[in-house]
């Protein structure tokens, strides 16, 4: 760990409610410099609200902490000059060209030598061929690249990216992640919210949020281990027909089709094995595997709902 360097994000008990409904409930989060931190959770779990509080778009109702060494409550104006925020929705001007958008953002941040900075960013993000095109006419993937380019112009130390890859094709997503990795190598910290499990696995560390509460955090392996979930993989002819039967068995919490196999998981390992015993015959092959992140997250969500 890079414990000797001060944390980029260090907030405690941040709380925010809208019209009496608590959206973020006493959330604490620590992110180290150069880290790519994944932020996961179902829709409405408070991810966007938390990110907006970090960049000064929303005022926390309670809690305290620092972002880039500045007080999140009192110094949001200073924080704004050092972060790059990419909203969930494309939030640049569709009626301005790619270059005009970047010029505008550059001037707002007061960048010296704007022409070079914009040219450099266009090159880096491979946006040069589209420089004169109106932003509104770009495809989803290129819009996302433009939004990222606009975030990077003023060389922020922290990127707050709210579902940056939603609705973007796999190639564009891979390019995007390559950029994030190279930025991390330069020391830029990223906090990224996502719904994609493959992206969650790419993060150095991640946090899982549901209904405003932090349910798990750590590396992907740590999160899986700490979940205490046991998973069996069952395969064989017409194995999918068994799903309804399996779901009703004691100890079975999730039955998920996984290609030609079924993943059956539960917290009580002995009870789960006992319930599956009748199916462990010649007709089906069974095997104990590691739970994957999705199963862990769905199980966390179910537990939270019960509680």
């Amino acid at each position, binding site marked *: 760990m890079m414990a000797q360097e001060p944390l980029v994000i260090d907030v405690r008990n941040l709380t925010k409610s*809208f019209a009496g409904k608590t959206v973020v409930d006493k959330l604490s989060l620590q992110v180290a410099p150069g880290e790519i931190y994944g932020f996961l959770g179902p829709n409405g779990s408070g991810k966007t609200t938390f990110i*907006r509080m970090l*960049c*000064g*778009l*929303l*005022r926390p109702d309670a809690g305290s902490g620092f972002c880039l060494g500045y007080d999140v409550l009192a110094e949001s*104006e*200073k924080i*704004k*000059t050092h*972060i790059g*925020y990419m*909203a969930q*929705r*494309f*939030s*640049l*001007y*569709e*009626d*301005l060209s790619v270059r*005009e958008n970047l010029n*505008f*953002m550059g*001037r*707002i*941040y*007061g*960048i*010296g030598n704007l022409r070079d900075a914009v040219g450099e960013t266009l090159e880096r993000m491979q946006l040069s061929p589209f420089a004169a095109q*109106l932003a509104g006419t770009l495809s989803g993937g290129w819009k996302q690249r433009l939004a990222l380019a*606009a975030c990077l112009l*003023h060389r922020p130390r922290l990127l707050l990216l709210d579902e940056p890859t939603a609705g973007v094709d796999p190639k564009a997503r891979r390019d995007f992640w390559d950029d994030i990795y190279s930025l991390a190598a330069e020391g830029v910290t990223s906090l990224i919210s996502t719904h994609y499990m493959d992206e969650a696995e790419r993060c150095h560390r991640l946090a899982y949020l549901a209904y405003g509460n932090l349910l798990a955090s750590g590396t992907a392996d740590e999160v899986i281990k700490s979940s205490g979930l046991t998973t069996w993989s069952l395969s064989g002819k017409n194995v999918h027909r068994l799903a309804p039967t399996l779901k009703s068995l004691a100890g079975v919490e999730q039955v998920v089709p996984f290609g030609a196999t079924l993943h059956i998981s539960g917290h009580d390992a002995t009870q789960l094995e006992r319930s599956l015993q009748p199916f462990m015959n010649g007709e089906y092959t069974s095997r104990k595997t590691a739970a994957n992140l999705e199963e862990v997250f769905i199980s966390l969500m179910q537990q939270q709902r019960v509680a």
Partner: protein
Amino acid sequence: MTGNGFFSFRRFRAMVGKEFVQMRRDRITFAMMIGIPILQMIIFGFAINSDPKHLPTVILAADHSVFTRTIISAMQNSGYFRVIENVASETEADLLVKEGEVQFVLSIPEQFSRRLVRGENPSLLLTADATDPAATSNAVSAFRLLAESALSRDLDGPLQHLRRTKAPLDIIVHPRFNPEAVTQYNIVPGLMGVVLTMTLVIITALAMTRERERGTMENLLSTPVKPMEVMIGKIMPYIIVGYVQMGVILLAGRFLFKVPMIGNIFLLLAVSLFFIAANLGVGLTFSTIARNQLQAVQMAFFFFLPSILLSGFMFPFRGMPVWAQHVGEMLPLTHYLRIVRGILLKGNDFAHILPNLWPIALFLLIALSVGLKRYRRTLD
């Protein structure tokens, strides 16, 4: 990086530049800004008539007798005139007319009564502020009849022979400022205020709401840009648009409708800045309240309708009931119409328009401070 102070000229310039590019790209809105003044001018080339009553009148009497009292009370009884006071001098009467305080001055010459009795056909002079011909024409024609019929009652006994003479007195009407009673002279300058109100309030109300509706506000708020820079940066391009519209109307008024322009055009352009800014302030305030562009347009109309109906543009101001006049007095357009007509048709100078300038300035101050206060620095 430049400082993070309260107002950065660079960020302000970035806002203005962006607004101009967006304005240029939005072809329909751009066409509307120039099209509306032309269209309105064609539509309102026609007069809208009405029969205003209780028009404020002062009496400049150099002679007092039973006859003059009869005429004055007959004027009151006709309902067209409301005699507010007697003035002592012609300059005083003249100033009241110029400032638009009164619509009529009735001048009774010296020895009016004596000459009437002698059958010498004395004259009465009714000076009218005929800027808006619709406001005065009915009152003027009523006056011609009422003076004669009222006097015929007094011309009794030994004076009865005077009744038989066709007209015991001459009535001279002096319609000032717009002697030929051309309605366009009144409508075209008024149109300037109406067009500015209409386009500027709507366009600025939309400008900020559009940022919020399209999600670009979220991006803007996450940057170091300050509310002042956003607000003024958004207002600035439209001030220029306002002046272009004024130019179109002034040119068309001069060369198409041949409106006489006797006042100082530069004075008009200078004081118009207050009016333009006041309208933009209203638009910006609306845009901080409206949740989407439709609401913004609705609010703009909510402001625009009373402005056009109660300001004295559509109907003569003094023809309206008193409560409506009070509402009208609160609207900047009411005062601006008086200023425009005053400068163009009456040749008013700065001192003359001052009573109508400060209400606009006050309105501007209120609108801007409400707008700035309501501008949300955060999304909650």
